[in-house]
C-alpha cells in the first residue's frame, strides 16, 4: 500500500481526533495529555495561512504553559458553548440546523443513528443523547478512517473502498449540510483560540477532505 495514502489516513485521523475531542470532551488536562506528542504534529502544518490552523497552532504551543486559571477559563468557555444553562450560541447538533423546527432528536438524528448502526457503532448513551453531535460525527469519520487503514494493511481493498465511500457519503449527506453553518455561528460566539480555531478550521478541512477522498476513490476505480 502506498506510503503516501497511509500517511494521509493517519494525518486525517489526527485531525478528526483533535476536532472530535475539542468539540465533545470537557477540556481537562487528561484529555489532551496523551496526545501532546501527536498534537505537536499540528505545528508542522504551516504551509497555509488559514486562520483556524493558525489559532490551533497557537493553542497547542501554549498548552504546556497552561496554569490552573487558564484551564479554568477554558473549562468555563466549554461550558458556555456546549453545556449551558444559558442558551447555547451554537447548539452542536445537526438536527438543530437541518430541521424546520430547529430541535434536537428528530429525523435527522435518526438518520445519523442509522448510519452509525450500519457500521456497527452506536453512541455510549443511546437514546439519552443526540447522536448527531458534531463531536460524535467527527469521531465517526475517524473510526471509519481508522478501519480503512486496518483494511488496507490487511490487503482488503474492497473493504477499504467501501469505508472510503462511506466517509464521502457521510461527509456529503450529513456533515457538509450543517457544519459550515454551525461553525459560522460558533466563530461569532467565542474568542478562545481552541474553539474559534476549531470553528474556522473545520468547515474548510472537511470540504478539502471530501474532495480528496473523492479523487482517491476515482484513482482506485481507474486502477
Amino acid at each position, binding site marked *: 500500500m502506498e*506510503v*503516501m495514502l497511509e*500517511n*494521509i489516513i*493517519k*494525518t486525517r*485521523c*489526527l485531525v478528526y*481526533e483533535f476536532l*472530535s*475531542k475539542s468539540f*465533545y470532551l470537557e477540556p481537562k488536562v487528561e484529555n489532551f495529555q496523551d496526545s501532546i506528542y*501527536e498534537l505537536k*504534529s499540528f505545528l*508542522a*502544518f*504551516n*504551509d*497555509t*495561512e*488559514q486562520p483556524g490552523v493558525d489559532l490551533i497552532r497557537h493553542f497547542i504551543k501554549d498548552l504546556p504553559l497552561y496554569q490552573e486559571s487558564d484551564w479554568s477559563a477554558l473549562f468555563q468557555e466549554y*461550558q458556555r458553548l456546549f*453545556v*449551558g*444553562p*444559558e*442558551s*447555547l450560541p451554537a*447548539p452542536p447538533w445537526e438536527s*438543530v440546523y437541518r430541521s424546520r*423546527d430547529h*430541535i*434536537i*432528536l*428528530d*429525523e435527522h438524528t*435518526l438518520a445519523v*443513528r*442509522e448510519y*452509525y*448502526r450500519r457500521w*456497527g*457503532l*452506536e*453512541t*455510549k448513551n443511546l*437514546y*439519552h*443523547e*443526540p447522536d448527531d*453531535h458534531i*463531536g*460524535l460525527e467527527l*469521531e465517526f469519520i*475517524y*473510526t471509519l478512517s*481508522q478501519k480503512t*487503514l486496518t483494511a488496507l494493511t490487511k490487503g482488503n481493498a474492497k473493504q477499504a473502498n467501501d469505508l472510503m465511500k462511506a466517509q464521502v457519503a457521510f461527509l456529503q449527506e450529513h456533515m457538509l449540510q450543517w457544519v459550515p453553518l454551525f461553525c459560522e455561528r460558533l466563530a461569532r460566539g467565542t474568542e478562545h483560540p481552541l474553539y474559534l480555531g476549531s470553528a474556522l478550521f473545520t468547515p474548510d478541512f472537511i470540504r*478539502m477532505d471530501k474532495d*480528496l477522498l473523492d479523487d482517491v476513490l476515482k484513482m482506485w476505480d481507474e486502477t
Partner: protein
Amino acid sequence: MAKTISRRSFLKWSAAVGGTLAVPGGLNIGLIQAAEATNMQENITIISGAGTNNCGGRCLLKIHVKDNVIIRVSTDDEPDNPEAPQVRACARGRAYRKTLLHPDRLKYPMKRVGKRGEGKFERITWDEATTTIANELKRVKEKYGPASRYAHYATGYSATIQAMNLAKRLLALDGGYLEFRDSYSAACSEVATPYTYGTVVSGNSQDDLQNSKLIILWGFNSAETIFGSQTNYYLRKAKEAGAKIIVVDPRYTDTAVAFADQWIPLRPTTDAALMSAMAYVIITENLHDQTFLDTYCQGFDEAHMPQGVPDGQSYKSYILGIKDGIKKTPEWAEKITGVPTDTIRQLAREYAMIKPAALIQGWGPQRHANGEQFVRAGTVLAALTGNIGNKGGWASGMGIYGRQLIPSVPIPPNPFTGSIPVYLWTDAVVRGTEMGPKDAVKGVDKLPSNIKLIMNLAGNALLNQHADINKTKEILSDESKVEFIVVSDLFMTPSAKYADILLPGDTSWERNNIANPWLQGDYVIYANKIIEAPFECRNEYDWLSEVAAKLGIKDQFTEGRKDMEDWCRWIVEGIQAAQPEFPSYDVFKKRGIYKWTYPETSVAFEKEIKDPANHKFLTPSGKIEIFSKTLYDMNDQGIPAIPQYQEGWEGPLDPLREKYPLQLIGWHHKHRCHSIHDNNPWLEEATQQEMWINHADAEVRGIKNGDKVKVYNDRGTMLIPVKLTARTIPGVVCVPQGAWYTPDENGIEQRGSLNVITNQKATPLAKGNTQHTNLVQVAKA
C-alpha cells in the same frame, strides 16, 4: 500563502508527519460497538401523549415515534360527537415538539457559583445535587424550624403527579413546611364564591351551555386562553342553537370576535360598579325574581336579613342608596365604568328577561384590587334573576364542577398547621414572623419564622410570574434572607436564574402521568412516556425519592412505588374504585383517554333549588347568602357583607392618574401558556409580544403603529412595540402576560414582561393577586 486549506498544503503536511504518527487506535470518545441485534424499530408507532401544562386545555396528542425519535405530532381524531367532543390541540399544543425538544433544554444538574441571580452555574453530579438538597433541608429545619421551608406555587405541569405537590409530600413527611393557599389564577373566585354558596362548585357541565338563551362572557376569553378544551365547541353549539352572546371586557378579544353579538367594553377594576347598576335597573324595573329571592336567599332585602344586623344593610338598600345615599344608577356607573347608560340598561334587562341566561365570570376581573366584589356581585346577579340550579342558567362565581373522582398523589397532613395566601409569599420571606391573621395567616396565630428555604419545582412564579419583579429580585438576591433555593425546570427561565441548585427536568413526553381536565371536562388522559429523557434530565419524583432516601424517609415517600408509572397504576385503581365502569390500566394507557358520557347535563345546586327542604346550601344559614353574616362580623370596611363597588387603588378614579394616566392590564394570549413557549419563535409568528393601545392614546403621544414605547410607573419600566387598535378602549393599554423578564444592563425590561409593572399589594379578603390593577404612563422610546 492561501487563507484556505489547499489539498497541496495538506498533502505536504501529511507527508511530513505521517511517518511519525502512531497507528490510530479506538478513540472511545462517544461511540462504541453496537450491541448485538439492537432492537431498531423499523416502523413508526403512534403513542398517545398529552400536554400537561397549566393550560386551560388538556389536549390529546397522537405522537408518531420511531426508534425513540418523535417524527410527528397530531391531535385527537376520535370521532367528534356532542356528548364526547374531540379534545383537540390548539396552536400551543401543536408547537409542543418545538418547545420540548429545544436545544436550550437544561441538560445537567448545576450549582450556583457567584452571587444569586447572576446566572453563573457549574455542572455537578446528581449525587452531589441530592446530597446538597437533603443537607440544606436538614440544616434549615434544625436552625429555623420546619415552617421556614416552602414549596412554591409551580404549575409548569399540572397533572395528578405534579412536582410542586411531590415537594410538599416530601416536606410533610420530613417534619413539615409552610403551606400556601389559593392560586395566582383565581384567589378571589376561590375565596369569595363560598361566601355566597358555601362551595366553589358552582358550575354546570359545559354541554349545558346549549340550553342557554343568553350567555354573558364577563372577562372570559376562552378562544385564546382555552378555558377548558371543549368550551369553545360548546359555545359554538350554543350559538348555533340561537343563544345571544355578549362579551364584557376592556378588550375586543378573540372570543368576542368569534362568538359575540355584542361587545361591552368597560374600564378595568369597575366590573362591580357595572353589576351594581345592572342590579339597580333589575330591581327598580321589577325584573328580579322575588319568589326566588324569598325562597332561597338571605340578604336581598330588609325582610330577609339574619339576626343581629342593624337596618339598612341589605343588598337592596345598598343598590337603592338607602344607606349611603348613592343610588347605583346607570348614570352613576357610567362615570366610573365608561359604559353608556343605555347599554347598561339594555344589558340588565336582557339578563333579567331572557331565560335561561348564563353570566359566566372569567378570572381576569378578579385579579384586581377589589376582585372579591366582582365575584360576589356576579353570584348575586344570578340570584336576582333566578339563574341558579336551572338548565341553561349559571350560578356564576368560581364555576367549577366535577362529576368524577380522580385521585392525585396524596400529600400527607402537614405537621405544621399554618398557611399563607400564596400571593404574600415574599412578605413571608421579608417579615414572616410579623405576619398574623390580618395577613390571612391561618392555622396558627403567627408564623414562627420567615421563609428560609424555597423549593421551586417546574414553575416560573419565583420571579417572572410574581408581581413587582424589581422588588422580588431584591428580596431573592439577599442570600441572608432565603438561604437556599432549589429550582427544577426545562429551561433557564428568569426564575431559574435565582437557583442555588438548578436541576434539569424531563418533559411530559419523557415520563408517564395522568392528567385530568384543567377545570372541567368529563375525560381523563393518560400522558404516555414517548421517548427517553435526554442528557441527565430527570423527573422530580425520581430525584426527590433520592433526597427522601438521604433523609431516611424513602419508604414513606415512595410507598414502594419506584417511578411515576407505579403511581399511575395507583391512580387508576382509585379512578376504578370511584367509577367502576373505568377500563383496565392497560386499555386506558394504550388509548390515552377515557371520556365519560352522561344522559343529563350536570347543573350546580339543582337539588338545592328543586328540593330546598332536604338540600340546604353549605352556608351558615343554609341559604344563598347575598348578605354574609360571616363577612359582616369581620367588621372591615374593605370587606363588605354584600357585594359593593369599591374603588380600591390604581383604578380609574385614583388621583395617581395625574402622573400615570393609563390603566394597564395583561391577558393570556395564543403565544404562550403563561410563560411556557416564550422561547419558541415559531409561536411568535402566530402572535407577537406587543402592547395594544387605542389610537387616541397613541396619537396624543405621537406614537405610531409598531413604534417601540416606554411603559413605566414607580415600580419599573419596560420597552415594548405597540399595536394601535380599536380593540382596546381609550385609557387602557394591554400587554400579554408571561413574557420572560429580559432586562438590559440598565434594568429596563426589553421583552414586555408584565410583572415589572405590577404590584405586590393583595386584595382585602382573599389576599389574592392584583396583577391587572396598574396605572402607567406610556411614551415614545
